[in-house]
């Protein structure tokens, strides 16, 4: 890897021997001369409005920006980690030159802010998928200011136009995407912006082509199944970290000295906040933890045994002498008067329990938008085609702020294993079905049966997977010769891929994944030219399907990640545009 590192120096020196712009690259490639000659430039550099000769050199570093609901990460492509992370917050929304934050007498009045924005909303860039009543211009302004801070404080770059790669959550509505792009294009003048969806970037960052990305995000939990770098299915639940913070507030408010009486009379639906969002958020990140799964997790696993041990420890809270008496003191400053709560440590797992699982309720009682996470994971796996499921279930990637809750990932994983063990991969459930399953006479020959233990998946594909290592549906007869498939096989290793068992893997994160993709010079599905965007905006985008489908297919293989280099004038917003 020494050589790529040294590359930029060479690039710089070549920049001067540029020949005048030639024809478009597609024709260029066909007429590529075989004798040594100076090739013409294939693509004209889109010159920004405020271009200068010096701007050319800056092209070598590409900026990767990862947009989250509460923070924004910036850095150079090729780096392992972002250079900086900017959080959205009320102090960022002040006027320049407003230094009241530094005044010793000043205290941010969260009650006023909650009245204006909603509790904690001033810490968000956008409100999930809800465009109603959103000031899109404000989103653009927030992005601009945050990005400017990232550029000057963390990346230390000047304002020469640089190419950008933006990682957006794939569920982002077009108006918001458009507002973000407007702001980026008009304020930072990047020649192009490439869009990457975070699940794909995450799976690249984990080294896999297919994955089940469980994003325990701020506004909601989104589960995306990625198959061959293509997003296949998305399910979501409102049980995100924001909900966790809400629940944390509820717990703390319950324990407030004056809170208990008022709470009981007012009822839970009263949106009266007693503590500041900042404080609850802080406590949620610091102290809240997640109980291990109650169900006796698969006993054949070593990890499963450990879970049991831990469970005993925490519930009996006796075994070790060092163990503290199970109460914890939490100082609170945002309530009037400031106080210190002393509450059982056990209770600090309640917010997590309520926010993500709500296991006291029947599993059938939930609406589609508020499914508990274990069920959500199970459902989204269940709804996948068999082959995709087999691959995805052994490539579960947990990401998002919720992963910081201790024990949460384990809990979800164990609970899902438990559901799988109970039900298998049957969409149908209920008493009658159980009876039918129990009765060997009724049972059809081909019916799938749940196998014991979480490792088991009853997929017919399992039978032939050892044979060739390349998975294909058992029901199929000989697949017709598909050039893409062929190509895939050629590139594939003969070693069998892990599939059909639940397994969680680590990803280096969406930002780092995007950095990796950009570093490998893989172009993305959606790359937008500045000039084109400024002319047409989002309306100019073609549907992803319309854009040069043929060359796209060829180039991708089955991957949605990579696309034909030059699609001429038509461009797309990728996954965002199709919706």
């Amino acid at each position: 890897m020494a050589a790529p590192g040294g590359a930029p120096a060479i690039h710089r020196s070549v920049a001067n021997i540029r020949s005048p712009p030639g024809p478009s690259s597609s024709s260029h490639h066909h007429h590529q001369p075989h004798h040594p000659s100076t090739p013409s430039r294939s693509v004209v550099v889109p010159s920004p409005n405020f271009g200068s000769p010096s701007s050319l050199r800056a092209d070598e570093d590409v900026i990767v920006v990862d947009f989250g609901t509460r923070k924004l990460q910036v850095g150079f492509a090729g780096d392992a980690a972002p250079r900086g992370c900017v959080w959205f917050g009320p102090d960022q929304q002040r006027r320049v030159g407003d230094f009241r934050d530094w005044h010793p007498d000043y205290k941010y009045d969260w009650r006023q802010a909650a009245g204006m924005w909603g509790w904690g909303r001033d810490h968000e860039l956008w409100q999930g998928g809800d465009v109603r009543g959103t000031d899109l211009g404000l989103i653009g302004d927030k992005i601009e200011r945050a990005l400017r801070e990232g550029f000057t404080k963390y990346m230390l770059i000047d304002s020469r136009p640089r190419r950008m790669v933006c990682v957006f959550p794939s569920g982002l509505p077009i108006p918001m995407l458009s507002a973000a792009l407007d702001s980026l294009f008009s304020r930072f003048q990047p020649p192009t912006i490439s869009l990457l969806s975070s699940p794909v970037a995450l799976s690249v960052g984990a080294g896999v082509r297919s994955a089940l990305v469980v994003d325990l995000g701020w506004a909601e939990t989104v589960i995306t199944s990625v198959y061959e770098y293509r997003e296949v299915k998305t399910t979501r639940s409102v049980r995100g970290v924001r909900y966790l913070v809400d629940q944390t507030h509820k717990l703390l408010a319950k324990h407030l000295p004056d809170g208990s009486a008022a709470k009981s009379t007012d009822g839970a639906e009263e949106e009266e906040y007693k503590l500041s969002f900042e404080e609850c958020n802080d406590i949620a990140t610091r102290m809240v933890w997640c109980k291990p799964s109650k169900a006796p997790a698969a006993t054949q696993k070593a990890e499963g045994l450990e879970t049991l041990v831990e469970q005993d420890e925490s519930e009996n809270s006796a075994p070790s002498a060092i163990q503290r008496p199970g109460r914890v003191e939490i100082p609170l400053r945002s309530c009037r008067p400031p106080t210190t709560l002393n509450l059982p440590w056990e209770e600090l797992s309640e917010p997590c329990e309520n926010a993500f699982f709500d296991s006291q309720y029947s599993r059938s009682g939930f609406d589609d938008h508020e499914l508990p996470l274990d069920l959500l994971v199970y459902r989204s796996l269940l709804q996948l085609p068999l082959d995709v499921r087999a691959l995805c279930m052994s490539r579960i990637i947990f990401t998002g702020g919720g992963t910081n809750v201790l024990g949460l990932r384990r809990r979800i994983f164990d609970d899902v294993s438990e559901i799988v063990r109970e039900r298998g991969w049957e969409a149908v459930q209920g008493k009658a079905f159980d009876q039918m399953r129990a009765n060997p006479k009724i049972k059809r020959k081909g019916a799938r049966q749940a196998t014991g233990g979480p490792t088991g998946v009853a997929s017919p594909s399992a039978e032939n997977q050892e044979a060739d290592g390349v998975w294909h549906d058992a029901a199929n007869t000989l697949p017709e010769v598909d050039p893409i498939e062929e190509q895939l096989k050629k590139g594939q290793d003969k070693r069998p891929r892990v599939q059909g068992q639940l397994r969680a893997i680590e990803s280096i994160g969406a930002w780092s994944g995007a950095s990796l993709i950009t570093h490998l010079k893989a172009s993305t599905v959606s790359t937008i030219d500045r000039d084109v965007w400024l002319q047409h905006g989002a309306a100019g985008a073609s549907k992803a399907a319309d854009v040069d489908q043929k060359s796209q297919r060829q180039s991708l293989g089955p991957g949605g990640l990579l696309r034909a280099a030059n699609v001429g004038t038509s461009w797309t917003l990728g996954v965002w545009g199709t919706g």
Partner: protein
Amino acid sequence: MAPLPFSPYTFIQCPCSDSTLLARPADAKSPTGADAEEDERTFDPRAPRSNYSLYPLEYLLYCEDCHQIRCPRCVSEEIATYYCPSCLFEVPSSNLKSEGNRCTRSCFQCPICIGPLSVTTQETRHPDANLLSADNAATPHSGGFSLTCSYCHWSSTEIGVDFDKPNGIHAQLAKIRNGGESRLTAKERKERRKELSHRGDSAAAAAAREEIEEQVPDLENQFANLKSFYNSQLADPTAADNGLSTLGDLGFSSPSSLSRIMNLYTGGKISDNKAKSRLGAIREALTPEEGLLVANLDEAALISQLHQSEHCDTASMAQITSQPPNLGEPALHGASRFTSSLRPIPHLLRTKRSKRCPVCRHIISKPEPKVQTTRFRIRLVAGSYIPSISIKPLTLPGPSGSSSSNPSDLLISLKPVHYLLTFKNPIFETIKVTLATPAATPGRFPSKVTVLCPQFDIDANTDVWDEALKDNDRSDKSSRNSGGTTRQRRGTEAGYQLEVGKIWERGRNWVSIVVEVVPASLRLEDGGMLREDEDILEIPMFVRIEWEAENAGDDGGIVPGAGGKDKDQKEKRELAYWCVLGLGKIKQN
């Protein structure tokens, strides 16, 4: 909570914030470009977006060639110097790419309180004695060195980190995990591995390799693994001379490689068909070496650690967010949760930047490149081109004169007050000022505003000495009792009567006018809450300045020069912008 003392202020909206909406033709159907009538509306200083476009006058620059205000959003910047704000050492720009954005010397901030950390010897009893002498100590140190915070007395020994040498702390720290465990950086791992492959001894090599692989996979190593894996996948041995396949080989040997290099500059469209087809053929990573990392979901140890720790043992959000991205973090999740896992924060580097006008590319601000100096070579601040506005409450002596209008006093709802706005002309030409305000301030609580004299001229900013020689008794011009020529017409004869359409007071290069405001009543019908700053009486004001500039050449260069060659002809110029005047706080009842 004591209310903050209020002092009147002025914010100016840079005209650039209007043009963002016009960046695209209005007819293009875009979800964001819907506000075509935006221009017609009165500027609302309380709209959340306004906070992003308002600046104090001191933050604004001015382009002499475009005759336009330039705010921090609409200048293009170039970096003059990179330096560490702690040790004030300049950092060459080449280091930035390789070493990152933080000081690589020994400048650290405390992870607990962000105070500066200093290197101290560990066994010493007098920590302050060796702050400076740590590195030239004659006696050999046996115990090593640590970083300590002189403010909160945090020491790096608390996280189990101590150093062998007092200098190069940054490099040493990169190799130590919290708790003292050593860590190989990605570069070292690679070298180690290469070394092994060169050596013949296979058994020892295998053992050593195992040892390397047993290292906890941190972010940096994981990224390096993945990168080398993907690179190896891309490098198809059958197509050695093709474009991207040989990322490492960047020679100029063939036209294709040359074109590839050039393509790197041309907007990301680099992959030809062959390269792409190879990209499609990446298989997935299968082993830890290739970057596949099976998650360890077992966090029982951390949970029990959490159980045994106090609230203050856990790191707060602020502490976590101020941590640098830690490449050596063993876990990819649940980073620094306890204060024991925080690490010293190397100082972020800073830059000195010169600023150009984005349109004409003229430099409008250029700092002295030396780090220690704070001077600027060029700095065209807007304050020397556009009039400054100062605000003070006007007290009229007379029957109601006893009520002292101290700036800190609160305004009473529905009780009219007068404010004196003083416009000061910084340029050498007479300017004509036209003001416009909405009759009622926008927002939930409309206060009534009347500018008594919305149009006036301000005399040129002539030489101070001319004026001083003309009349000697203007020494005390701020005092209203000095009388005489400073207050023309208004003062004595009219008996402090306010007259519509008349200037209150006029000086050499300044004019005062009176604004009458009737503060709104801050009463909400629905019993809701006041938002932050809603009790501050802010009036939006549209300022338009016209002046006739002499054309370029004959003045000292301070007067805006014009592009034309005709010297006799005077050129008419104008500048218009919104500004916001914060007058006072309304008393809440």
